[in-house]
């Protein structure tokens, strides 16, 4: 079990995707306590482009995004074998079982309900990075 607050995560990148810039600002601010790199995307296509370029260890994305929605992004990510190790977390105000099940069935690893509660966010990020670190020997 790793304490990710103490771990050196500077080699890792986290992608945040949301069409509302303020959400991204808030998330970036909240996650600034971790020392991983943060990249943001403002829509689904932008997120896919940056996933291909930055190879993030963790993707936190909104469902309701223009161009490509969150479901479509998850589908594309999981179709690509190079992205199989990436952890995907969906965040949405659509926290019905139907949406969560759908996200999980497409390959999402976790779900954060909007509006975002800090503790939930930290729990999810810690959980996902523990999974990342457990299979990665970079730390």
């Amino acid at each position, binding site marked *: 079990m790793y304490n990710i607050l103490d771990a050196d995560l500077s080699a890792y990148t986290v992608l945040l995707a949301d*069409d*509302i*810039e*303020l*959400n991204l*600002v*808030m998330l*970036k*601010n*909240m996650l600034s306590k971790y020392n991983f790199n943060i990249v943001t995307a403002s829509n689904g296509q932008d997120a896919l482009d940056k996933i291909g370029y930055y190879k993030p260890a963790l993707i936190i994305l909104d469902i*309701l995004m*223009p161009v490509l*929605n969150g*479901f*479509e992004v998850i*589908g594309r990510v999981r179709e690509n074998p190079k992205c199989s190790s990436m952890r995907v977390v969906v965040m949405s*105000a*659509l926290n019905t079982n139907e949406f969560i099940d759908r996200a999980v069935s*497409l390959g999402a690893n976790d779900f954060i309900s*909007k*509006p975002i*509660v*800090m*503790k939930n966010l930290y729990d999810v990020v810690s959980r996902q990075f523990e999974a990342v670190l457990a299979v990665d020997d970079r730390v």
Partner: protein
Amino acid sequence: MSDKTISGLQMHIQSLLILIPCLAGFFWFLAYLLFAPRNDSFRKARHFIAFISLFFLFGFLSADDESRLLLHFTLFEQVCALCIIPCFISYIKECGGKKASGYFFKLCCILPVLHLIVGIESVFSAGFDDCLKLFMYSGSVQGPIFAIMEDKSQAVFYVCYTYVFGAFLLVDFMLFAVNLVTCAINGTCRPRDVFGFFFRGRRCEIVPVQYLLTLIILLTIVPALLLGRRCYVDSIIMSFSACLFLAFFLSMDAFVGLAGQQKKQSIRGLIRSVRFGAYQGADAPVTSDGPDKTNHSDIPYVSNPNSGVAASMNMPSIGISDIFSDTPLGESFDPEFEKFMLEQKMYLKRDLSVSQAAEWLGVERAKLNDYMERTYGMSFMSYLNMLRVDYAELYILGHGDVTQKDIALACGFSSASAFNTTFSKLTGVTPKIWKDRYAEMSKRKKTV
């Protein structure tokens, strides 16, 4: 004028009754100006009270002549009438801006103006010799002592006017009494609970000073009506007695404000901390105005998130040591802020301002702003708009054919235009385009 001569003993009592509250009010006013926190919502009311006290002091200093004393006493009322207006405007803005300025508030603002107009008219309609006497009549506090008025028709007019004004104040007083009883039943005693009422589904506040003025009116009118034309001196003394009461409130308010400033905390923070401390480990009473209402239409009714329900949710307590601390709000404040904003859905409260939020949370506005910048990287209002737009997206999805106005009101925006502007600014598209996009997305969802 012989029956109006103030005897030596009466004058002595009157002097004390005036001097003590005046000096108390004056020095507390000075202390307040020097030390009181700027964000105190009672600020303007305190200015108003202090202003009254200064006029009383001025009147007292020129009390060598009875007429001059009365003239000053009456003049102060005219100035008070003017002072009430900014007080009301301030409170109207604070409790909801245009939406809160219903007919009741307009009436509140118009009456003092009428008061002044009548006073001015009385001067011009009378001869110079009667000016002082008419001044007495134009001051509504002394209105009921119409028996010494020579012109009965004028007296009837002024009395009618006085009673209209008095009735208006009486309504305030009754509201105040009802609130006190309600608070006693609910086990709450915050100023916001006492000095508030609901108007058109929105919680509003009345200038607290108005209640004190009501007391003055009541204390003056009763003996005046009972004693008739000889009540002249008695009613004035009663008024001064009421002022003692007023000055007491001023002193208490200024004292708490002063203490709050010394500890960098507002009056509400102190009261709140005491209340929270009292609720720790106890079975907190659940009030009828509980904030945990999921129906968006009820959100504007949310009264006091820190009263019963919030306390029963085991909301983290801010202890006295925290309140007295000069350090910025830390991580321990996170859960409380999130419960306030997210669990209680305060972001759906229309016209919620950073000042209101700071008051509800019992922290200073500057501290809250600092906390928002450090924790969320944005201002309180930006965070509020973000939450509202997030909620609006969900609302649009969940409700098919609703107007923009319905969405706006449901999501905490004051108007459709405000919603449209904010939504477009944050998402980059108008709500209509967003809705169309969702319709398109929902079709494509099936293919994913």
